[in-house]
């Protein structure tokens, strides 16, 4: 599989980290901008974008660093969303517990399905993860206690350590941003650690890693589980933002869009995934202003990017700026 990039020089790595902080700084200023232009809807879209940025970054962890093209990551968004709905119905309303439950369910699901999927390679892996994602989707479609196919609205958002802090869109936005930054720092540390380097090694050359004495399977499975748990946090946020849950959160189109985000931004660097989420969702919103058929144009753009701009947007930026030493 040729998703591997050239090893990244440290200077460029730092450049990417800087770019991430620029995105975070701009994101922190967005509510002020929304207030100036008197458009509170911006904050709502912003929360959605940041939540998807979390999911895309989590996917990049395995797709970019481990060369595992998971086509079933929307399932974890669904686990997150349904954790909020199900626990809330039984009177457990705190977001910390929602996140904990979402991560626990995701860890179990990722361990079982990952153990089966990771034993396979290439096309098999893509199709199997897609099929498992679909299995989770159908489970929630038939869950009639929570609206089945139609989903259900949430009575309230999650409480925040006992307070109703998250009822305001603005505080939900900043909590999401804080979670994103926290997870970005965590993921950055992870990929620079010994664990991350072994994972990158399995991406480059599995046989060589085995010869050096590692068991790639363990590292890949661990990364797969971590990625699934992180993605489920995005689901918890999305459910709170929409105050509505349905199996649509976990349809295979969402899994596809997550891959699109990662590749659009450039794989194998966490910043790219975040940027990709911002670009993809803004593109949807902007095309959506002009036409209902945004998918048509989004599809065309997607094909053009794949055919003519390898490396996504960050690849494009690098080609324009020329090779750096």
């Amino acid at each position, binding site marked *: *599989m040729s998703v591997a990039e050239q090893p990244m020089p440290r200077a460029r790595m730092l450049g990417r980290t800087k770019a991430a902080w620029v995105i975070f700084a701009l994101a922190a200023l967005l509510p002020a901008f929304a207030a100036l232009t008197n458009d509170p809807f911006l904050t709502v879209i912003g929360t959605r974008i940041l939540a998807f940025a979390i999911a895309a970054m989590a996917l990049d962890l395995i797709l970019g660093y481990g060369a595992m*093209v998971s086509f079933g990551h929307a399932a974890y968004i669904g686990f997150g969303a349904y954790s909020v709905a199900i626990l809330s119905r039984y009177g457990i309303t705190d977001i910390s517990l929602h996140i904990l439950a979402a991560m626990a369910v995701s860890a179990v699901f990722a361990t079982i399905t990952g153990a089966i999927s990771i034993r396979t390679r*290439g096309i098999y892996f*893509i199709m199997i993860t897609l099929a498992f994602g679909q299995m989770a989707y159908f489970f929630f479609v*038939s869950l009639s206690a929570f609206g089945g196919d139609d989903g259900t609205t949430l009575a309230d958002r999650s409480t925040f350590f006992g307070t109703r802090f998250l009822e305001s869109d603005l505080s939900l936005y900043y909590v999401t941003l804080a979670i994103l930054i926290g997870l970005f720092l965590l993921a950055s540390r992870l990929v620079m650690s010994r664990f991350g380097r072994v994972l990158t090694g399995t991406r480059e050359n599995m046989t060589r890693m085995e010869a050096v004495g590692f068991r790639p399977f363990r590292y890949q499975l661990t990364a797969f589980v971590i990625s699934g748990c992180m993605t489920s946090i995005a689901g918890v946020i999305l459910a709170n933002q929409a105050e509505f849950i349905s199996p649509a959160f976990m349809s295979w189109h969402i899994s596809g869009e997550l891959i699109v985000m990662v590749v659009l931004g450039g794989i194998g660097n966490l910043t790219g995934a975040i940027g990709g989420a911002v670009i993809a969702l803004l593109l949807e919103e902007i095309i959506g202003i002009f036409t209902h058929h945004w*998918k048509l144009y*989004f599809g065309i753009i997607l094909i053009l990017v794949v055919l003519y701009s390898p490396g996504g947007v960050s690849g494009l930026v690098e080609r324009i700026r020329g090779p750096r030493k």
Partner: protein
Amino acid sequence: MTNLFILQLLNGLQFGVLLFLIAAGLTLVFGIMDFVNLAHGVLYMVGAYLMATFVAMTGSFTLGMLLAIPAALVFGLLVEYLVIRKLYHRSHLDQVLATFGLVMIVSEGVKIIWGSAPLSVPVPELLSGSIALVGPLQYPVYRLAIIATGLLAALMLYLLVNHTRIGMLLRAGATNQRMVAALGVNITRLFTMIFAFGVMLACFAGAMVAPILSVDTGMGESVLILTFVVIVIGGIGSIRGAFLGALLVAMVDTLGRTFGPILLRMVMDSSDASQVGRTLAPMLVYILMAAILFAKPDGLFGRKTT
């Protein structure tokens, strides 16, 4: 109970041959070209829509079919020429993305051209009505016709792959693509042929089911994923695997949905049984897939991938 079982067995068989028609082309594309094609499902859908249009236009089922298949083939070749051909030597990731883009374009395009309301195709006069099987059991002639055509197609496919020159090239291409190219076979043309062939089978399947399903924009997606399960179970690139996988998946799905709740009722009370049954039934095929993969990571008839 026996009658219900025979009825569901026939339904499963009919669904199975349908899945096989779609999976056969796709497994060749996957196996020989090492190409991930997510757009196969929407091509099946296009086949059904073209069928609906041409049948409405000509008023004849046969004429409609005779027009729909070539039209779908032209469409498939156009897609191959514009997009797919450029992706043969790209990574799987690029292929996934580009064909995902195709799915978006085609399903939205279908919505623009035909609207979101489902279309229906009348069952042809000659094949309408039901015939008596055993005792009071009736079964629609058209569904039996689908089973017969599907099995016939499977037989022809078997002869084509195992007893013709093209079939020989296909098998050779699946085993060692470079060697075949080195021996002077035009691989790109072979790929185009395989792709076109797969499109034709998928569109044929779409055209055949149009009279018994409502033709709508979601029909391609539900089938696509089941087709993937079929291919994974059967082993990528294996027509024989696709045939067995398709029957297995269709039977488990059809029988599971009907008899799952009935069997569960023996161990729990009836309202619980129907709830649990409804939840478990759609998951059965995936559990089956997981079980088979756990034992054989390359599917029943797959070659080693690593």
